[in-house]
């Protein structure tokens, strides 16, 4: 899908430029766009290094595990089909905490472990279980405490207050996560009514 969108953007642009007489603008944009992307990524290094460094400290200090324990009573209510002390629960919680702290690379393997456990709970069926759908619904709506990359990009483009989107992002992400949980519940009850 992304391949079609990507190639489509460039192809439509080039054809449009031929008709529109903007081919020289396009020429310039190609080199400017590439240069800007690289400059940006280099600029991102500063924040990413700092943030992932801090998060590693939090991880080593056991903060993530601590938070996972704190959230357990709430989270386990969202997964009524998972026994409280099943390893699946542990992985689900660790995955959520890693996502919360923006540790995407650490979150993915934990999430896959959680999925393996959920699959085992579902008798190794190749069909998605209720708990899997709930887990992924929460995962795709993502609760991130601090959108580090965005802050870095805003800094790079000379924002007067690069972090002023932290609060709004937090509210928006909570809204999308609550919606995900509600929508998931709605679809579940619709399925179970159908039998």
């Amino acid at each position: 899908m992304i391949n079609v969108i990507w190639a489509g953007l460039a192809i439509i642009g080039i054809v449009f430029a031929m008709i529109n007489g903007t081919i020289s603008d396009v020429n310039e944009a190609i080199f400017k766009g590439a240069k800007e992307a690289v400059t940006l990524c280099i600029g991102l290094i500063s924040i990413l290094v700092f943030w992932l460094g801090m998060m590693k400290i939090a991880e080593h200090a056991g903060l993530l595990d601590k938070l996972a324990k704190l959230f357990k009573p709430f989270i386990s209510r969202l997964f009524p089909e998972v026994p409280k002390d099943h390893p699946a629960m542990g992985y689900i919680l660790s995955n959520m905490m890693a996502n919360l702290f923006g540790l995407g690379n650490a979150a993915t393997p934990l999430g896959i472990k959680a999925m393996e456990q959920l699959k085992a709970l579902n008798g190794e069926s190749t069909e998605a279980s209720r708990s899997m759908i709930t887990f992924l619904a929460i995962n795709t709506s993502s609760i991130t405490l601090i959108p580090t990359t965005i802050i870095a990009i805003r800094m790079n483009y000379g924002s007067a207050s690069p972090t002023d989107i932290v609060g709004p992002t937090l509210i928006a992400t909570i809204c999308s996560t609550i919606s995900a949980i509600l929508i998931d519940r709605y679809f579940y009850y619709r399925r179970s009514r159908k039998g």
Partner: protein
Amino acid sequence: MEIVSLISLWFIPVLIGFILVYATFKRVPTYESFVEGGKDGIKIAISIIPFLVGMMVAIAIFRASGALEFFLDFIRPVFVAIGIPADVIPLAIIRPISGNAALGMTTDLIAEHGPDSLIGRMASVIQGSTDTTFYVLTVYFGAVGIKKMGDALKVGLLADLAGFIAAILIVLIMFA
């Protein structure tokens, strides 16, 4: 809304302070842990270069040719009527499909309109408020061999939509 601004300002320093105090009490080798984690930061920044170059060039072509303006002129009246800048709509469409493509688009919007413009802020919040639904589903279901996704895609995309609406409304309330 004062409180939200206050949270934005205080959140990061307080969180960093808390982590350092907590880790020191737990006798974690803080500086060594920091360096270990920081190395990942370099890897991530370098590894997204090809994604961003590809996407930002494609968007730059699309914009410079005039095709983007042409497309936006079509949808603008509808969204302007309800008070939403049409420029963020392509971002909302691409956000669930590819995270890096969306990051390229967000960067383009911030560069073009300024980070502190309404569009720049809206793009920032949209980018941060949801994850890439298609990617998450493909990776997680793919890794454990689930063939039937059930309602997962529908739920994910509807939640994304709710997130976008929330993002747009909050930015309008706070910054418009």
